[in-house]
């Protein structure tokens, strides 16, 4: 392999493709979770708080309807104005945000409601307060809560799917991903800092990580790519919602019909990488 930066990591073409995916997912005019919830679900009612002392605005939970069914909704939420970005912490959850998600999973299980999650986060918040309050423990418990959810569960990656923070609302029975969204083990900047000791080599890292939606589909981590309007979701929020809504409705209907259960969901994530099938 010939590396564009002399490291053999990726061709210029591969870097451009991977980086376009990242830039598309991070476009400042891209519809965020609440923009798509408004366009894809009916009668959304937001709920607040983790019932343990916090209400993290980086995570939104609530109730809604779709195709005559009631749903639990959990979403990462970024802010658009300067004020809202601060309040939403750029969509990066603290432990309270993960515990808020756990509350939604528990609520949905108790009331036998399917869950739809919207993923759009650079990752869990990397700060002192988050660590002090058990960030890692909160994420681990949220993974467990998802795998124990007794009702059908559908996830859709609508923008950035960053690391463990994204995984906390991704372990669904079926995973959809928008055409220009991505899922990655670490942000390209963090991966570049680790691999090349240089966060500036983010394009090489993005290419090496092969984080594009098409790869996730090929590997079975995502089940379906949802097309975006020509030019990308940021060009037309209504059109994006109109493309996504029928896919959510159809997938949810399918999951309800199949009668999914936690055993099957755990089996999916136990066998997902397909390398060691017995």
């Amino acid at each position, binding site marked *: 392999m010939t590396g564009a930066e002399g490291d053999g990591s990726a061709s210029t073409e591969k870097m451009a493709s991977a980086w376009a995916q990242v830039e598309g997912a991070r476009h400042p005019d891209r519809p965020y979770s609440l923009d798509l919830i408004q366009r894809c679900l009916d009668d959304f009612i937001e709920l607040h708080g983790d019932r343990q002392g916090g209400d993290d605005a980086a995570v939104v939970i609530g109730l809604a309807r779709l195709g005559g069914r009631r749903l639990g909704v959990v979403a990462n939420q970024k802010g658009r104005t300067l004020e809202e970005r601060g309040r939403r912490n750029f969509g990066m959850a603290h432990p309270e945000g993960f515990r808020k998600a756990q509350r939604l999973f528990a609520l949905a299980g108790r009331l036998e409601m399917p869950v739809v999650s919207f993923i759009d986060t650079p990752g869990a918040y990397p*700060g*002192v307060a988050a660590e002090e309050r058990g960030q890692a423990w909160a*994420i681990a418990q949220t993974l*467990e809560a998802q795998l124990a959810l007794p009702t059908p569960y559908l996830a859709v990656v609508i923008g950035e799917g960053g*690391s*463990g923070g994204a995984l906390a609302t991704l372990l669904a029975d079926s995973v959809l991903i928008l055409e220009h969204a991505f899922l990655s*083990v670490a942000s390209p900047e963090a991966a570049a800092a680790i691999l090349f000791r240089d966060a500036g080599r983010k394009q090489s890292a993005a290419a090496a990580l092969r984080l594009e939606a098409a790869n996730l589909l090929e590997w079975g981590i995502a089940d379906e790519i949802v097309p975006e309007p020509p030019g990308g979701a940021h060009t037309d929020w209504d059109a994006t919602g109109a493309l996504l809504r029928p896919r959510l409705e159809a997938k949810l209907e399918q999951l309800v019909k199949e009668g999914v259960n936690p055993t099957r969901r755990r089996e999916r*994530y136990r066998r*997902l*990488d397909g390398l060691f099938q017995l």
Partner: protein
Amino acid sequence: MSASPTYSQPPAATAEEDGVVVCAVCSSPQSSTEAAENLYVCPACGAHSRISAHERIRQLADPGTFKVWDVGLEGRDRLGFFDTRAYVERLDEARLRQHLPDAILSGAAEIGSIPVGLAAFDFGFLGGSLSTAVGERLARAIEASAESRVPFICVTSSGGARMQEGVFSLMQMAKSVSALHDLAERHLPYISILVDPTMGGSIASFAALGDVILAEPKAMIGFTGARVITQATYEQLPAGFQTSEFHHARGLIDQVVDRRQLREVVSNLLRVLSTSSGDTAQSAA
């Protein structure tokens, strides 16, 4: 990540040519024989050096009881990954150096004559990072313990995800947590022991979910490494940030245990946990 600059360097002792080991923290010398007898803990200052998975199992399991699981299970380079070197080269080199197929060793053992499933991470193998093969070995060890109706003990020392396996590494968090359900379903205990360092995807999945969580003194434990936090937020780090003691004070770890007492503490835990509950609703019926 062996190449990762994210986490602090170990308080590792360095072996001199004449068989003298010098503590990396206080510079006290001891002979290599003494160092082994002291379980690689400095007798002068108590610093715990990082040890291999093989050494960890030697220290914890009753002599002669360890029977390794999944000997031949190796991962592969799914992404064709190349950063500053080819991932396959890094893997081959680590396998030779650490005498392990990947960053974890697991098997059946006895501790204080109680049969257990035992897994130990090897930080010397690409930073104990969570590869597909590590996740698979871990999941199989959990399932084998559940199958044999024995408690499961995991000693984690891991930098987190293995970048070179991209999203497959991330998904090992889900895999390990899925497998843990087998133990819960059979009401079998899981003891998680956190050792310097336990970071990122490892502590944010299986390692944080122990029924009982122990940690060695002054181990670095956390989701995001201190260097990354400082770079991202410019925050001042409090004293003792992300040490075992820091998390213990915040209710996240049950006990901080000196390595020289670890085997006894685990053995006592196992003795209590292996005693029948006798009068639970199910058995009373």
